[in-house]
């Protein structure tokens, strides 16, 4: 009887020790388990930050490309063949030095001149051959008085900002702006005589479209 009691007591002791050992081991293991969870959590957070960075970087990259495209197109906008019909006053400019047009020619309300000094009185439908002859186009004109579209004196930043303002261009959308640049025969005519703009007309159109497609970013200066 005594023997049996002693044996049971020993068994109980073993069970208690085992339970204590398990508890101890579990306690030891817990921090690692927690660490694991924390680490997993941190990894997810890092991944998220990385995604935001890529999007931002992509956006920044596009903006930079957009600005670069505008800056290239700007060299055409500010070339005398384009600039001369986008003066800061009401007198058109002429020549490669963009001097004031002779004869005190004025814009007029529709951009086609005043009284006996309408653009078309001298500018014929086509270029007249010979030195010092006025270049020609069937629809020679300046922008009208209500939307003068002044380029003269504007920085790339100022000009790009202006182009995005419908009050400046008179165009309802950027599509109309592109159409003017791409299809207006008077614009295209500017690439056919005298000192040519630094880009060909097709390359110019590509740059303008690229500027708009990549977000029409405003240059820094």
């Amino acid at each position, binding site marked *: 009887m005594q023997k049996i009691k002693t044996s049971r007591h020993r068994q109980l002791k073993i069970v208690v020790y085992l339970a204590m050992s398990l508890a101890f081991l579990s306690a030891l293991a817990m921090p690692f388990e927690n660490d694991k969870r924390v680490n997993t959590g941190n990894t997810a957070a890092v991944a998220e930050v990385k995604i935001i960075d890529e999007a931002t970087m992509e956006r920044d990259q596009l903006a930079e490309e957009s600005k670069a495209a505008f800056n290239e197109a700007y060299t055409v906008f500010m070339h005398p063949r384009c600039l001369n019909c986008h003066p800061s006053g009401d007198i058109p400019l002429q020549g490669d030095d963009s001097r004031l047009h*002779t004869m005190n020619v*004025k814009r007029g309300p529709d951009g086609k001149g005043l009284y006996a000094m309408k653009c078309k009185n001298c500018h014929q439908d086509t270029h007249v051959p010979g030195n010092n002859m006025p270049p020609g186009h069937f629809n020679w004109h300046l922008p009208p008085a209500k939307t003068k579209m002044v380029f003269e004196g504007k920085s790339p930043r100022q000009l790009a900002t202006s182009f995005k303002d419908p009050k400046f261009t008179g165009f309802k959308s950027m599509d109309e702006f592109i159409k003017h640049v791409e299809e207006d025969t008077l614009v295209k005519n500017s690439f056919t005589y005298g000192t040519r703009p630094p880009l060909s007309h097709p390359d110019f159109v590509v740059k303008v479209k690229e500027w708009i497609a990549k977000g029409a970013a405003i240059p820094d200066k």
Partner: protein
Amino acid sequence: MINIKVNGKAYQLAVDPSTPILWVLRDTLGLMGTKFGCGVAQCGACTVHLDGEGIRSCISPVSRAAGKEITTIEGLDVKLGKPLEQAWIQEDVPQCGYCQSGQIMAAAILLRDNPNPTDQDIDDGMSGNLCRCGTYQRIRKAIHVAAKLRT
């Protein structure tokens, strides 16, 4: 063949389409009132009206006038021409007279579109017509007189 109307008369002309209107008027039709000045649209002596616009006939090809109406100093509407003529005489405007045909054709458009022009309007309408004699002050005065004569 090119069909044009000059001072109300219709003409069918066998001329090169690139011939300047000026030479069709002077050499082909014998209308000598319109003068050759610079030949590069700089001076305004050759101004005539093409469908009411004051074109420079020395560089405008006759093809541009096909189917249209040209008015020269000889055919200027009396409602515009007479007051201008009287004012020009009253103010003794011409000196050598060579540019005056172009001056009057430009002044006629100014008065037609702006019956009471200011000095600024006159400058805007007339500064494309050069006068080697420098009769500009008298031209300006005569246009004011002509404006009054029309009322």
